[in-house]
Protein backbone atom coordinates (compact mmCIF):
# COMPACT_ATOMS: atom_id res chain seq x y z
CA UNK A 1 0.00 0.00 0.00
CA UNK A 2 2.81 2.29 0.85
CA UNK A 3 4.62 1.40 -2.30
CA UNK A 4 1.50 1.99 -4.32
CA UNK A 5 0.83 5.27 -2.64
CA UNK A 6 4.48 6.13 -2.96
CA UNK A 7 4.31 5.43 -6.65
CA UNK A 8 1.01 7.22 -6.78
CA UNK A 9 2.39 10.25 -5.03
CA UNK A 10 5.65 9.99 -6.87
CA UNK A 11 4.08 9.88 -10.28
CA UNK A 12 1.52 12.55 -9.48
CA UNK A 13 3.81 15.05 -7.86
CA UNK A 14 6.57 14.90 -10.54
CA UNK A 15 3.93 15.28 -13.27
CA UNK A 16 2.72 18.49 -11.69
CA UNK A 17 6.23 19.46 -10.88
CA UNK A 18 7.40 18.75 -14.37
CA UNK A 19 4.89 21.22 -15.75
CA UNK A 20 5.83 23.65 -13.05
CA UNK A 21 9.49 22.99 -13.71
CA UNK A 22 9.06 23.29 -17.45
CA UNK A 23 7.25 26.56 -16.95
CA UNK A 24 9.93 27.76 -14.59
CA UNK A 25 12.75 26.50 -16.77
CA UNK A 26 11.25 28.01 -19.89
CA UNK A 27 10.97 31.24 -18.01
CA UNK A 28 14.48 30.77 -16.66
CA UNK A 29 15.81 30.20 -20.17
CA UNK A 30 13.99 33.27 -21.40
CA UNK A 31 15.34 35.35 -18.58
CA UNK A 32 18.81 34.05 -19.24
CA UNK A 33 18.56 35.00 -22.93
CA UNK A 34 17.27 38.42 -22.11
CA UNK A 35 20.06 38.93 -19.60
CA UNK A 36 22.65 37.95 -22.18
CA UNK A 37 21.31 40.27 -24.85
CA UNK A 38 20.90 43.21 -22.50
CA UNK A 39 24.42 42.73 -21.16
CA UNK A 40 25.68 42.89 -24.74
CA UNK A 41 23.68 46.02 -25.41
CA UNK A 42 24.98 47.70 -22.29
CA UNK A 43 28.56 46.89 -23.35
CA UNK A 44 27.90 48.48 -26.73
CA UNK A 45 26.31 51.61 -25.26
CA UNK A 46 29.12 51.90 -22.72
CA UNK A 47 31.74 51.83 -25.48
CA UNK A 48 29.74 54.31 -27.57
CA UNK A 49 29.67 56.59 -24.56
CA UNK A 50 33.47 56.35 -24.27
CA UNK A 51 33.92 57.20 -27.94
CA UNK A 52 31.50 60.10 -27.69
CA UNK A 53 33.34 61.44 -24.60
CA UNK A 54 36.65 61.63 -26.46
CA UNK A 55 34.93 63.22 -29.43
CA UNK A 56 33.27 65.78 -27.15
CA UNK A 57 36.55 67.07 -25.75
CA UNK A 58 38.03 67.46 -29.21
CA UNK A 59 34.86 68.95 -30.63
CA UNK A 60 34.63 71.44 -27.76
CA UNK A 61 38.15 72.64 -28.40
CA UNK A 62 37.38 73.15 -32.09
CA UNK A 63 34.14 74.86 -31.15
CA UNK A 64 35.88 77.43 -28.95
CA UNK A 65 38.10 78.35 -31.90
CA UNK A 66 35.23 78.42 -34.38
CA UNK A 67 33.17 80.62 -32.06
CA UNK A 68 35.96 83.18 -31.80
CA UNK A 69 36.51 82.98 -35.56
CA UNK A 70 32.80 83.57 -36.19
CA UNK A 71 32.65 86.41 -33.65
CA UNK A 72 35.71 88.15 -35.10
CA UNK A 73 34.06 87.92 -38.50
CA UNK A 74 30.66 89.24 -37.40
CA UNK A 75 32.06 91.88 -35.04
CA UNK A 76 31.78 94.31 -37.92
CA UNK A 77 28.10 93.46 -38.49
CA UNK A 78 27.33 94.28 -34.86
CA UNK A 79 29.42 97.45 -34.81
CA UNK A 80 27.82 98.74 -37.99
CA UNK A 81 24.37 97.80 -36.58
CA UNK A 82 23.21 95.96 -39.67
CA UNK A 83 19.48 95.34 -39.41
CA UNK A 84 17.11 92.96 -41.11
CA UNK A 85 14.95 94.64 -43.74
CA UNK A 86 11.15 94.44 -43.32
CA UNK A 87 9.69 91.67 -45.38
CA UNK A 88 13.09 90.19 -46.18
CA UNK A 89 12.83 86.67 -47.60
CA UNK A 90 14.90 84.13 -45.70
CA UNK A 91 16.65 80.99 -46.88
CA UNK A 92 16.67 78.56 -43.96
CA UNK A 93 19.81 76.42 -43.73
CA UNK A 94 19.36 73.57 -41.24
CA UNK A 95 22.65 72.39 -39.76
CA UNK A 96 22.27 68.79 -38.59
CA UNK A 97 24.15 65.60 -39.43
CA UNK A 98 23.87 62.04 -40.73
CA UNK A 99 24.31 60.19 -37.46
CA UNK A 100 21.63 59.26 -34.95
CA UNK A 101 21.48 58.03 -31.34
CA UNK A 102 21.95 61.58 -30.08
CA UNK A 103 18.58 62.14 -28.32
CA UNK A 104 16.67 65.23 -29.43
CA UNK A 105 19.28 66.93 -31.63
CA UNK A 106 17.71 66.43 -35.04
CA UNK A 107 14.06 66.57 -34.00
CA UNK A 108 14.70 69.85 -32.18
CA UNK A 109 16.09 71.33 -35.41
CA UNK A 110 13.17 70.14 -37.53
CA UNK A 111 10.64 71.37 -34.97
CA UNK A 112 12.25 74.82 -35.01
CA UNK A 113 12.26 74.86 -38.81
CA UNK A 114 8.63 73.76 -39.04
CA UNK A 115 7.59 76.46 -36.60
CA UNK A 116 9.34 79.11 -38.73
CA UNK A 117 7.77 77.77 -41.90
CA UNK A 118 4.32 77.82 -40.34
CA UNK A 119 4.76 81.60 -40.24
CA UNK A 120 6.56 81.92 -43.60
CA UNK A 121 5.40 79.01 -45.77
CA UNK A 122 7.32 80.16 -48.87
CA UNK A 123 10.79 80.11 -47.36
CA UNK A 124 13.27 77.89 -49.24
CA UNK A 125 15.18 75.35 -47.15
CA UNK A 126 18.63 73.85 -47.51
CA UNK A 127 19.43 70.92 -45.24
CA UNK A 128 22.84 69.70 -44.15
CA UNK A 129 22.64 66.13 -42.82
CA UNK A 130 20.39 63.19 -43.62
CA UNK A 131 18.66 62.88 -40.25
CA UNK A 132 16.98 66.29 -40.38
CA UNK A 133 16.35 65.80 -44.10
CA UNK A 134 14.16 62.72 -43.58
CA UNK A 135 12.16 64.49 -40.88
CA UNK A 136 11.66 67.74 -42.80
CA UNK A 137 11.05 66.05 -46.13
CA UNK A 138 7.94 64.39 -44.74
CA UNK A 139 6.13 67.70 -44.31
CA UNK A 140 8.02 70.34 -46.30
CA UNK A 141 9.46 68.65 -49.38
CA UNK A 142 8.19 71.43 -51.66
CA UNK A 143 10.39 74.02 -49.91
CA UNK A 144 13.57 72.00 -50.08
CA UNK A 145 16.29 73.22 -52.41
CA UNK A 146 19.54 71.48 -51.52
CA UNK A 147 20.50 68.76 -49.12
CA UNK A 148 24.03 67.78 -48.15
CA UNK A 149 25.27 64.62 -46.52
CA UNK A 150 28.53 62.95 -45.45
CA UNK A 151 28.57 65.40 -42.56
CA UNK A 152 28.91 64.63 -38.89
CA UNK A 153 31.44 61.84 -38.51
CA UNK A 154 34.36 64.24 -38.02
CA UNK A 155 34.82 67.84 -36.94
CA UNK A 156 33.86 69.95 -39.97
CA UNK A 157 36.84 71.53 -41.75
CA UNK A 158 36.70 74.84 -43.55
CA UNK A 159 36.99 73.28 -46.99
CA UNK A 160 33.74 71.36 -46.37
CA UNK A 161 32.13 74.58 -45.19
CA UNK A 162 33.25 76.54 -48.24
CA UNK A 163 32.08 73.77 -50.58
CA UNK A 164 28.59 73.89 -49.06
CA UNK A 165 28.56 77.69 -49.02
CA UNK A 166 29.62 77.84 -52.68
CA UNK A 167 26.79 75.54 -53.79
CA UNK A 168 24.17 77.54 -51.92
CA UNK A 169 25.41 80.94 -53.05
CA UNK A 170 26.08 80.09 -56.68
CA UNK A 171 22.55 78.83 -57.36
CA UNK A 172 20.96 82.07 -58.51
CA UNK A 173 17.56 80.46 -59.04
CA UNK A 174 16.80 80.48 -55.32
CA UNK A 175 15.32 83.82 -54.27
CA UNK A 176 16.29 85.09 -50.87
CA UNK A 177 17.56 88.18 -49.10
CA UNK A 178 18.79 86.90 -45.77
CA UNK A 179 20.07 83.48 -44.76
CA UNK A 180 19.00 82.01 -41.43
CA UNK A 181 21.30 79.31 -40.07
CA UNK A 182 19.40 76.99 -37.71
CA UNK A 183 21.86 75.07 -35.54
CA UNK A 184 22.23 73.59 -32.07
CA UNK A 185 24.11 75.82 -29.66
CA UNK A 186 26.29 74.02 -27.12
CA UNK A 187 24.88 75.25 -23.79
CA UNK A 188 26.70 72.73 -21.56
CA UNK A 189 27.90 69.14 -21.60
CA UNK A 190 24.36 67.97 -20.92
CA UNK A 191 22.26 70.66 -22.61
CA UNK A 192 21.88 72.21 -26.04
CA UNK A 193 19.63 74.94 -27.45
CA UNK A 194 18.41 75.29 -31.00
CA UNK A 195 19.45 78.79 -32.08
CA UNK A 196 19.80 80.91 -35.22
CA UNK A 197 22.54 82.92 -36.86
CA UNK A 198 21.35 85.62 -39.21
CA UNK A 199 23.30 86.41 -42.41
CA UNK A 200 22.45 89.67 -44.18
CA UNK A 201 22.59 90.62 -47.86
CA UNK A 202 25.15 93.14 -49.07
CA UNK A 203 22.36 95.68 -49.63
CA UNK A 204 21.47 95.66 -45.94
CA UNK A 205 25.11 96.05 -44.92
CA UNK A 206 25.41 99.15 -47.11
CA UNK A 207 22.29 100.63 -45.49
CA UNK A 208 23.51 100.04 -41.95
CA UNK A 209 23.98 103.21 -39.89
CA UNK A 210 27.53 102.35 -38.88
CA UNK A 211 28.61 101.43 -42.38
CA UNK A 212 29.18 105.05 -43.42
CA UNK A 213 32.31 105.16 -41.27
CA UNK A 214 34.01 102.42 -43.32
CA UNK A 215 36.15 102.96 -46.39
CA UNK A 216 35.66 100.10 -48.77
CA UNK A 217 35.92 99.21 -52.42
CA UNK A 218 32.46 98.45 -53.73
CA UNK A 219 33.31 95.33 -55.69
CA UNK A 220 34.71 93.46 -52.70
CA UNK A 221 31.39 93.85 -50.83
CA UNK A 222 29.89 90.79 -52.47
CA UNK A 223 33.03 88.78 -51.71
CA UNK A 224 32.96 90.03 -48.14
CA UNK A 225 29.36 88.92 -47.74
CA UNK A 226 30.04 85.46 -49.13
CA UNK A 227 33.01 85.19 -46.79
CA UNK A 228 30.87 86.26 -43.80
CA UNK A 229 28.27 83.64 -44.72
CA UNK A 230 30.92 80.91 -44.95
CA UNK A 231 32.39 81.96 -41.59
CA UNK A 232 28.98 81.86 -39.92
CA UNK A 233 28.22 78.51 -41.53
CA UNK A 234 31.53 77.14 -40.26
CA UNK A 235 30.76 78.33 -36.76
CA UNK A 236 27.28 76.72 -36.90
CA UNK A 237 28.67 73.44 -38.25
CA UNK A 238 31.42 73.09 -35.65
CA UNK A 239 29.24 74.14 -32.72
CA UNK A 240 26.42 71.88 -33.92
CA UNK A 241 28.89 69.00 -34.08
CA UNK A 242 30.02 69.64 -30.50
CA UNK A 243 26.41 69.81 -29.27
CA UNK A 244 25.64 66.54 -31.05
CA UNK A 245 28.62 64.71 -29.56
CA UNK A 246 27.66 65.89 -26.06
CA UNK A 247 24.06 64.79 -26.58
CA UNK A 248 25.22 61.41 -27.88
CA UNK A 249 27.40 60.95 -24.80
CA UNK A 250 24.50 61.75 -22.48
CA UNK A 251 22.14 59.49 -24.43
CA UNK A 252 24.55 56.56 -24.30
CA UNK A 253 25.22 57.14 -20.61
CA UNK A 254 21.48 57.01 -19.89
CA UNK A 255 21.10 53.92 -22.05
CA UNK A 256 23.90 52.16 -20.19
CA UNK A 257 22.38 53.12 -16.84
CA UNK A 258 18.94 51.89 -17.89
CA UNK A 259 20.39 48.65 -19.20
CA UNK A 260 22.16 48.24 -15.86
CA UNK A 261 18.86 48.68 -14.01
CA UNK A 262 17.14 46.10 -16.17
CA UNK A 263 20.03 43.67 -15.68
CA UNK A 264 19.73 44.02 -11.91
CA UNK A 265 15.98 43.45 -11.97
CA UNK A 266 16.26 40.46 -14.28
CA UNK A 267 19.10 38.91 -12.27
CA UNK A 268 16.94 39.07 -9.14
CA UNK A 269 14.05 37.51 -11.03
CA UNK A 270 16.34 34.82 -12.42
CA UNK A 271 17.77 33.97 -9.02
CA UNK A 272 14.32 33.77 -7.45
CA UNK A 273 13.15 31.53 -10.26
CA UNK A 274 16.22 29.33 -9.86
CA UNK A 275 15.69 29.09 -6.14
CA UNK A 276 12.03 28.16 -6.66
CA UNK A 277 13.04 25.36 -9.00
CA UNK A 278 15.61 24.02 -6.57
CA UNK A 279 13.15 24.25 -3.65
CA UNK A 280 10.56 22.34 -5.65
CA UNK A 281 13.05 19.63 -6.54
CA UNK A 282 14.04 19.35 -2.89
CA UNK A 283 10.38 19.05 -1.84
CA UNK A 284 9.89 16.39 -4.45
CA UNK A 285 12.90 14.42 -3.25
CA UNK A 286 11.95 14.76 0.40
CA UNK A 287 8.34 13.79 -0.16
CA UNK A 288 9.49 10.89 -2.27
CA UNK A 289 11.99 9.86 0.35
CA UNK A 290 9.52 10.21 3.23
CA UNK A 291 6.95 8.19 1.30
CA UNK A 292 9.31 5.24 1.13
Amino acid at each position, binding site marked *: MFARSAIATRSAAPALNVIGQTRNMATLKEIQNRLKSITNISKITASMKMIASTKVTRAQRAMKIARIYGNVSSDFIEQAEVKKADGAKELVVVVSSDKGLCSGIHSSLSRHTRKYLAKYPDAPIAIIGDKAKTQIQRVLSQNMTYSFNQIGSTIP*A*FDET*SAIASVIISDKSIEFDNIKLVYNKFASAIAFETSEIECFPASQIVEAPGFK*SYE*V*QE*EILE*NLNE*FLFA*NNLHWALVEGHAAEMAAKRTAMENATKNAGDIIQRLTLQYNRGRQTVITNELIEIITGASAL
Partner: protein
Amino acid sequence: MSFLARTFKPAAAFARVSRQAATRLYASEASAASSGKLVLNFALPHQIVLSSKEVNQVDLSAVSGDLGILADHVPTIEQLKPGVIDIIADSGAEKYFVSGGFAIMNPNSVLNINAIEAFKLEDIDAQAVASQLAESQRLAASAKDELTKEAAAIEIELYEAIQTALSTKAH
Protein backbone atom coordinates in the same frame (compact mmCIF):
# COMPACT_ATOMS: atom_id res chain seq x y z
CA MET B 1 58.45 71.05 -43.21
CA SER B 2 55.92 71.36 -45.97
CA PHE B 3 52.35 72.08 -45.03
CA LEU B 4 51.46 73.04 -48.52
CA ALA B 5 50.13 70.08 -50.44
CA ARG B 6 46.49 70.16 -49.41
CA THR B 7 46.14 73.10 -47.11
CA PHE B 8 46.93 75.95 -49.45
CA LYS B 9 44.11 75.58 -51.95
CA PRO B 10 42.21 78.84 -51.54
CA ALA B 11 38.45 78.65 -51.96
CA ALA B 12 37.73 79.67 -55.53
CA ALA B 13 34.72 81.72 -54.52
CA PHE B 14 36.70 84.26 -52.53
CA ALA B 15 39.88 84.71 -54.49
CA ARG B 16 38.23 85.95 -57.64
CA VAL B 17 39.70 89.41 -58.09
CA SER B 18 37.84 91.90 -60.22
CA ARG B 19 40.13 94.07 -62.24
CA GLN B 20 37.64 96.67 -63.39
CA ALA B 21 37.85 100.29 -62.31
CA ALA B 22 37.79 100.57 -58.53
CA THR B 23 34.85 102.36 -56.94
CA ARG B 24 35.80 103.34 -53.47
CA LEU B 25 33.27 104.31 -50.82
CA TYR B 26 34.91 106.83 -48.56
CA ALA B 27 34.20 107.24 -44.89
CA SER B 28 31.85 110.15 -44.40
CA GLU B 29 31.93 110.22 -40.63
CA ALA B 30 34.91 110.68 -38.39
CA SER B 31 35.69 107.82 -36.03
CA ALA B 32 35.14 107.90 -32.25
CA ALA B 33 37.61 109.24 -29.68
CA SER B 34 41.18 108.00 -30.05
CA SER B 35 42.29 105.18 -27.78
CA GLY B 36 45.94 105.14 -28.74
CA LYS B 37 46.57 101.44 -29.21
CA LEU B 38 45.71 99.13 -32.07
CA VAL B 39 44.03 95.90 -30.88
CA LEU B 40 44.46 92.97 -33.22
CA ASN B 41 42.30 89.84 -33.55
CA PHE B 42 43.77 87.36 -36.03
CA ALA B 43 41.66 84.22 -36.45
CA LEU B 44 41.73 81.15 -38.67
CA PRO B 45 38.88 78.59 -38.79
CA HIS B 46 41.02 75.99 -37.00
CA GLN B 47 43.30 78.20 -34.88
CA ILE B 48 43.22 81.57 -33.18
CA VAL B 49 46.60 83.08 -34.01
CA LEU B 50 46.22 86.28 -31.99
CA SER B 51 43.42 87.43 -29.73
CA SER B 52 43.03 90.99 -28.44
CA LYS B 53 46.74 91.64 -28.86
CA GLU B 54 47.92 95.23 -28.57
CA VAL B 55 50.18 96.06 -31.49
CA ASN B 56 51.71 99.15 -33.02
CA GLN B 57 51.37 98.52 -36.73
CA VAL B 58 50.05 95.87 -39.08
CA ASP B 59 51.14 95.76 -42.73
CA LEU B 60 48.70 94.00 -45.04
CA SER B 61 48.79 92.88 -48.62
CA ALA B 62 45.32 93.73 -49.92
CA VAL B 63 43.68 93.33 -53.30
CA SER B 64 43.51 97.11 -53.60
CA GLY B 65 47.18 97.47 -52.70
CA ASP B 66 49.53 97.16 -49.78
CA LEU B 67 48.70 99.18 -46.71
CA GLY B 68 49.91 99.70 -43.17
CA ILE B 69 47.41 100.05 -40.34
CA LEU B 70 48.20 102.06 -37.25
CA ALA B 71 46.05 102.79 -34.21
CA ASP B 72 42.88 104.73 -35.03
CA HIS B 73 43.27 104.16 -38.73
CA VAL B 74 40.17 105.07 -40.73
CA PRO B 75 37.72 102.16 -40.51
CA THR B 76 38.15 100.13 -43.62
CA ILE B 77 37.35 96.74 -45.12
CA GLU B 78 40.02 95.12 -47.25
CA GLN B 79 40.09 91.82 -49.08
CA LEU B 80 43.48 90.20 -48.55
CA LYS B 81 45.35 88.59 -51.40
CA PRO B 82 47.87 85.78 -50.79
CA GLY B 83 50.74 87.60 -49.15
CA VAL B 84 52.56 88.56 -46.02
CA ILE B 85 51.02 90.14 -42.93
CA ASP B 86 53.64 91.95 -40.88
CA ILE B 87 52.67 92.51 -37.26
CA ILE B 88 54.82 95.00 -35.38
CA ALA B 89 54.36 95.08 -31.63
CA ASP B 90 56.47 96.25 -28.72
CA SER B 91 57.66 92.67 -28.31
CA GLY B 92 58.96 92.53 -31.88
CA ALA B 93 57.81 91.89 -35.43
CA GLU B 94 56.09 88.73 -36.70
CA LYS B 95 55.46 87.88 -40.32
CA TYR B 96 52.74 85.47 -41.42
CA PHE B 97 51.97 84.33 -44.93
CA VAL B 98 48.19 84.20 -45.41
CA SER B 99 46.30 82.45 -48.15
CA GLY B 100 43.62 85.13 -48.33
CA GLY B 101 40.76 86.49 -46.26
CA PHE B 102 39.48 89.81 -45.04
CA ALA B 103 40.80 92.52 -42.76
CA ILE B 104 38.30 94.84 -41.15
CA MET B 105 39.42 97.93 -39.24
CA ASN B 106 36.69 99.04 -36.84
CA PRO B 107 36.01 102.50 -35.44
CA ASN B 108 37.03 101.40 -31.93
CA SER B 109 40.63 100.80 -33.09
CA VAL B 110 40.11 97.03 -33.29
CA LEU B 111 41.54 95.31 -36.36
CA ASN B 112 39.89 91.98 -37.17
CA ILE B 113 41.65 89.69 -39.61
CA ASN B 114 39.97 86.47 -40.77
CA ALA B 115 42.16 84.28 -42.95
CA ILE B 116 41.81 80.70 -44.08
CA GLU B 117 45.43 79.62 -43.59
CA ALA B 118 48.38 81.44 -42.10
CA PHE B 119 51.92 80.26 -41.51
CA LYS B 120 55.09 81.89 -40.33
CA LEU B 121 57.50 82.31 -43.23
CA GLU B 122 60.12 80.08 -41.64
CA ASP B 123 57.62 77.17 -41.58
CA ILE B 124 57.29 77.16 -45.36
CA ASP B 125 59.36 74.77 -47.48
CA ALA B 126 60.67 76.54 -50.59
CA GLN B 127 61.30 73.29 -52.44
CA ALA B 128 57.68 72.19 -52.06
CA VAL B 129 56.54 75.61 -53.29
CA ALA B 130 58.69 75.35 -56.43
CA SER B 131 57.45 71.87 -57.28
CA GLN B 132 53.81 72.78 -56.61
CA LEU B 133 54.19 75.90 -58.78
CA ALA B 134 55.53 73.84 -61.67
CA GLU B 135 52.62 71.43 -61.22
CA SER B 136 50.06 74.26 -61.31
CA GLN B 137 51.65 75.84 -64.37
CA ARG B 138 51.49 72.51 -66.16
CA LEU B 139 47.86 72.13 -65.15
CA ALA B 140 46.99 75.62 -66.35
CA ALA B 141 48.58 74.94 -69.71
CA SER B 142 46.92 71.58 -70.25
CA ALA B 143 43.51 72.29 -68.71
CA LYS B 144 40.49 71.79 -70.93
CA ASP B 145 37.69 73.56 -69.01
CA GLU B 146 37.45 77.07 -67.60
CA LEU B 147 37.01 75.99 -64.01
CA THR B 148 40.26 73.99 -63.86
CA LYS B 149 42.08 76.79 -65.67
CA GLU B 150 40.87 79.37 -63.20
CA ALA B 151 41.62 77.18 -60.21
CA ALA B 152 45.14 76.59 -61.53
CA ALA B 153 45.58 80.34 -62.10
CA ILE B 154 44.65 80.98 -58.48
CA GLU B 155 47.17 78.38 -57.35
CA ILE B 156 49.90 79.96 -59.50
CA GLU B 157 49.16 83.37 -58.00
CA LEU B 158 49.43 81.85 -54.55
CA TYR B 159 52.72 80.03 -55.10
CA GLU B 160 54.32 83.02 -56.82
CA ALA B 161 53.27 85.19 -53.88
CA ILE B 162 54.88 82.73 -51.48
CA GLN B 163 58.08 82.74 -53.50
CA THR B 164 58.19 86.55 -53.50
CA ALA B 165 57.59 86.59 -49.77
CA LEU B 166 60.34 84.05 -49.12
CA SER B 167 62.82 85.86 -51.34
CA THR B 168 62.20 89.28 -49.81
CA LYS B 169 62.59 87.77 -46.35
CA ALA B 170 65.95 86.38 -47.31
CA HIS B 171 67.26 89.87 -47.99
